[in-house]
């Protein structure tokens, strides 16, 4: 199955982990990347700008109804859930927080699984809660590929551990190995 898109979820320690992840991605990737990183609603820090400095792919904040573009990293905006529609466009919601988080990884992953089905790769990185586990389970159920950062290599192991416990993983590897793995899956 060809990979159409990659969704990534992270929480505590996530920015550093994302810098490592994005820094190792091949700039030839043609897949859309969508990242949900827990942050507070009034977070005015320019996360896209920070991540862009480490990434060879362009990094932008996802906007309501804009299409997910191949070879671009899209970030969930603070204070809103980010969802994927089946027409490949983004949707936002202010539905209640999930696992104390908005944006929630589960919300993104579940909608992305419905939109992209078996063409989706889900990645769960460091974090101190259980968000993402349910979403990763759905991605696997719909035939997508699940990658989990090995808890031992995570700054906060709880989130990858929760994902492993609930969803299992097709690949459970240290953070440093994830970019090469994604390059291989996507450029194959």
């Amino acid at each position, binding site marked *: 199955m060809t990979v159409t898109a990659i969704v990534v979820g992270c929480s505590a320690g996530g920015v550093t982990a994302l810098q490592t992840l994005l820094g190792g991605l091949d700039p030839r990737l043609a897949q859309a990347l969508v990242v949900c990183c827990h942050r507070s609603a009034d977070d005015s820090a320019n996360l896209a700008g920070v991540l862009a400095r480490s990434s060879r792919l362009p990094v932008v904040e996802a*906007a*309501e*109804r804009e299409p997910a573009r191949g070879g671009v990293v899209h970030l969930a*905006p603070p204070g*809103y859930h980010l*969802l*994927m*529609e*089946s027409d490949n466009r983004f*949707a*936002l*919601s*202010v*539905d*209640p927080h999930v696992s104390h988080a908005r944006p929630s990884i589960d*919300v993104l992953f*579940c*909608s992305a*699984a*419905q*939109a992209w*089905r*078996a063409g989706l790769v889900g990645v769960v990185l460091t974090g101190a809660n259980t968000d993402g586990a349910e979403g990763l*389970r759905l991605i*696997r*159920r*719909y*035939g997508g590929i699940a990658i989990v950062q090995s808890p031992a290599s995570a700054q906060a192991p709880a989130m990858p551990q929760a994902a492993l416990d*609930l*969803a*299992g993983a097709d690949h459970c590897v240290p953070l440093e190995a994830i970019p090469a793995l994604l390059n291989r899956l996507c450029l194959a």
Partner: protein
Amino acid sequence: MDPESPSHDDIGEAALTDIELELFVRAMQRRHGYDFSQYAPASLLRRVRQLANSLECGTISGLTSRTLHQPELLPRVLEGLSVPVSDMFRDPRVFRALREQVLPILASYPRIDIWQAGCAHGEEVYSLAILLEEAGLYERSHIFATDLSTRALQHAQEGIYPAREAQQWSRNYIATGGTRSFADYYSVRYNLLKIDKRLRRNVTFAQHNLVSDKVFCEAHLVLCRNVLIYFSNPLQSHALALFRDSLVRGGFLCLGLRESTDFATTAADFDPFDEPQRIYRRSIHPAAGSKA
């Protein structure tokens, strides 16, 4: 279902989910006259799934069946599918713009009618009432607060919220430029915060469906924040047309901070007033195709 067991059916679970959602929407339409077919599908699916879970229906089809056979469930279903709760003075800089830029203009009208579409539990209704009160305009103002869900309206009318919100809401209030004490507007009993009922004296709560109901008032300000994000483009255009037809020329429209009207055909009927806060005015000049 066992999460580890792969799906062996021929069309796949995700496709099955699409069919189930479609049938649920059809059932709501034919059985109860509520049309959700123009709602943005991803959020709708999420809410329908949550309803199916919280009502212990097992599947979306199970929820559809109960929706068909147990009409008494309808208010509960509508509540689950309508606008989520907000905060008082959510996005304070928007309320600051209303306070400092919009109300001084509205003050020139002898009577100020405001329509809040999709009021949920009423947090923003009372926020507006406080702004009007402090501007000395409340006596000649009327707020029509509408929602699809009668259960939400009930809640809004009661004006009772968890007391733990008070701190954040008070910070929000101050950030809007409020100079009184936010605590003047509510009382606390046990762990509940009850809004002063005087703030409700010029508010009418009523059920209204943006999909099927018509314009019912001539408004000087329409507040509809974070409702259109749940609508598909055609329904968004339809709702904007309703707001346009409800607003007096030069009347104000306030949308949610990340709501885009770029894809709506009726967007041309509005001029930006404070674009970053998503505050617009109904165009003075009639746009092509709009009501004279």
